[in-house]
């Protein structure tokens, strides 16, 4: 059984004359973890603040569990929305210890129950030992987990996370994001995360909305965002890749410098039109036997793989992800071949 927990219909918000969110529609099913992904300034945090009720909307409606909480006529104050929030700077109370921070939102519970819930959460976030410490005595990761526990404690219907990992070391981010996902899933909570870091989004979210200029460009799974981007912005923003000019032959064939690509074309283009074709690093495979040669411009060691930047004979550059035992020097020529099962091509940009 799936049930829509959160629904945003045509929401609009602006600061002064500048629109921050324009006509945004979004829905999230109960138990899912959604993510708004986008560069800074795209309006994603504002969406979160509108959902939380820290800001009202200029147009549109926000429904929570089928009840309208924000519209031009209705405004349910944040404290009545049963929404938890983890702030970017954690905003822990510096004058309270860890346990008191976590128990802060449990003011409606009896003392005994409150203590039980705090203990439970301390256990969940592995901070039982630190319960009497003050925030300034904790590491960044610990502070982050306290903030999460504090937001989860009152069992919110919906948990909002505003760039929760941006203050942490990169090495910590990945580990913590997996941990956070587990915690959220274990608590059977629905959550929305806002971030500009796609690795984070991919690690945590079930569904990701890519935002740009106050609009959601594409709401989809991580796989589809990467492999089936709906527009050029998404294709560019998600993952790595290059665009090469090509000429559409028919619905299943496009010709580029490296040869003719064959496969399903995601976007319809008239035969004969000139397009830009997206080539991901994994679309290009190293093959010593191939007649197709390219010069290595630079390389980046990634452990299992090496990411090579290659220059084609015509001067265009492509990326290739190659198992790392194929170690070649910069300047060397290596053989490559294409391995594409669907074609992502967009109308060429007017220059």
């Amino acid at each position, binding site marked *: 059984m799936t049930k829509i927990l959160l629904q945003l219909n045509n929401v609009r918000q602006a600061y002064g004359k500048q629109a921050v969110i324009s006509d945004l529609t979004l829905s999230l099913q109960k138990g899912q973890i959604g993510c708004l992904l986008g560069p800074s300034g795209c309006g994603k945090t504002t969406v979160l603040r509108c959902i939380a009720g820290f800001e009202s909307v200029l147009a549109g409606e926000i429904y929570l569990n089928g009840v309208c909480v924000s519209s031009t006529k209705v405004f349910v104050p*944040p404290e*009545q929305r049963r929404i938890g929030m983890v702030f970017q700077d954690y*905003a822990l109370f510096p*004058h309270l210890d860890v346990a008191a921070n976590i128990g*802060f939102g449990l003011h409606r519970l009896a003392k005994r129950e409150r203590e039980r819930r705090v203990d439970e959460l301390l256990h969940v976030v592995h901070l039982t030992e630190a319960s009497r410490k003050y925030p*300034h005595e904790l590491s960044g990761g610990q502070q982050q987990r306290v903030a999460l526990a504090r*937001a989860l404690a009152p069992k919110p219907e919906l948990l909002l996370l505003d760039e929760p990992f941006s203050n942490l070391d990169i090495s910590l981010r990945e580990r913590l994001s997996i941990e956070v996902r587990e915690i959220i899933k274990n608590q059977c909570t629905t959550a929305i995360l806002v971030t500009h870091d796609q690795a984070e989004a991919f690690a945590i979210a079930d569904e990701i909305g890519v935002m740009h200029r106050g609009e959601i460009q594409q709401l989809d799974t991580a796989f589809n965002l990467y492999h089936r981007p709906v527009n050029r912005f998404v294709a560019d923003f998600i993952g790595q890749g290059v665009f090469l000019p090509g000429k559409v032959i028919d619905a299943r064939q496009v010709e580029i410098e490296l040869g003719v690509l064959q496969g399903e074309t995601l976007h319809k283009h008239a035969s004969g039109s000139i397009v830009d074709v997206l080539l991901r690093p994994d679309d290009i495979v190293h093959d010593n036997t191939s007649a197709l040669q390219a010069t290595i411009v630079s390389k980046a060691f990634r452990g299992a793989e090496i990411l090579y930047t290659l220059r084609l004979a015509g001067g265009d550059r492509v990326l290739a992800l190659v198992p790392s035992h194929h170690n070649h020097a910069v300047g060397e020529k290596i053989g490559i071949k294409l391995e594409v099962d669907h074609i992502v091509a967009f109308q060429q940009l007017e220059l």
Partner: protein
Amino acid sequence: MIIWRWVPFVAAALVLVPVGVIFSSVLMPAGEIWRHLVETTLISLLLNTFWLVLGVIVGTALLGISLAWFTAVYEFPGRRFFSWALLLPMAIPAYVTAFVALGLFDFTGPIQTTLRAWLDSDLSWFPDIRGRMGVIIVMTLAFYPYVYLLARNAFLSQGKRSLEVAQSLGFSRKQGFFKVVLPMARPWIAGGIMLVSMETLADFGTVAVFNYNTFTTAIYKAWFSMFSLQAASQLASLLIVMVFIVIVLEQQFRSRMRYAETKSSAKAQRIQLAGWHNWMVTGFVVSVLFFAFFLPVAQLGYWSVQSFAQNYDVGRYLEFLWHSLTLSGLSALLICLVVIAMVYALRRYPDSATRYAVRAATIGYALPGTVLAIGVYVPLVWLDGQLSELALHWLQIETGQLIQGTLAIMLIAYLIRFMAVSHYPIDSAMQRITHSIDEAAMSLGIHGWAMIRTVHIPILKPGIFTAATLVFVDVMKEMPITLMTRPFGWDTLAVRIYELTSEGQWEQAALPAVTLILAGLIPIYLFMRQTEI
């Protein structure tokens, strides 16, 4: 760099020497006056003082915190103007507000006179403005900016965010304010309230206008009327002990908690007030400003115009003004520098000896001005005598006085008195520099003076500006120390105000008073521009 280490101790010593001079009186008998006090007025004096301080604390807290909250978080008509205009009452000496308030609202004032004429009644129901409530209200109006300024600092940096956290945890805005925002702003508010209570305890001018007897009145009575500086010093010692107890209690209270924020968030949107709320807040702010600033200034302005013909000596006034500005400016500079060094030392060496030294350095503010003035004067003059004797003996030079009669002695005395005023804002600002900020800077290869200049000063700047403004305005208003220690001819606006009011010539004192207020607006204006209040 290591010099910092000792600044708190030197500063504490500077304060403790006069305090010691005052305390040394305890050794000398003044038993007769004590017996007299205990038998007659002591109990009522203590009660009077207690209720006054309590009333002013409650009043300034209510006004200061609410005004700070409204201007820091909400948007309402005139908010930009009000947020700095609310500091204006700082420029008015409290006794001036007191005199104007009495002049307007007392039996002979225009309000009661008009009402009596209209209603043809003796107005026996009209509250006695010269009572306790009157003093409390006037002092509240005069001193609330201390709380306002510091609380606003706290609210601006963390108020909105903590409110949101509270709301996301199911608290209403109101609950969030009381459960989160207020507790988090505690060190700032406590600092403001400490200043207010010290100022209230030390006040003589305002209570004199109201003829309200306090502990300080008793001190002056013992000294000036019964010619017993001993008894006065003993009473003052008792006052110091009381203040020190309060300081220690406050210190204990915030010992383990830290108030450094993790990160100051980007400028949050203000909450737009709607409908009648809007106008209620505006109305509230306007009425505070009206009674605390515009009414006294209008009255003074009226008197100035009336008495202008008698005070036309413009050259003389420019001289007073120049002296006032120079003294205030130099003191603000000196005091802020010393306090910054002191606060740094405490940060680097947060041991309890240093902590108590810093605390001790701030008690000068609680002493009645004249008592402190003589406490400062006696040892300095003694030192001067020793020096000139040494010079005469060893170098065969007749030096006369070296310190006495120079600005140095004034600046030292101001330093001793006003360190507290700049300590609270600078200390609060320093709490914002977390150790990770230092570490971050060091990791970028920035350390020593470069770190102070490029990292610390920008963070401390609002605090330093607050401190400098407070000191500047306070020195400008200060009388007893200025009177006692000024070099010949170094009369200031405050001196002129003292002279005229001591002879009951309030109307003529209006011109220097207005000038003093206008001059006090300069730092407030600069302050406002610097901190984009």
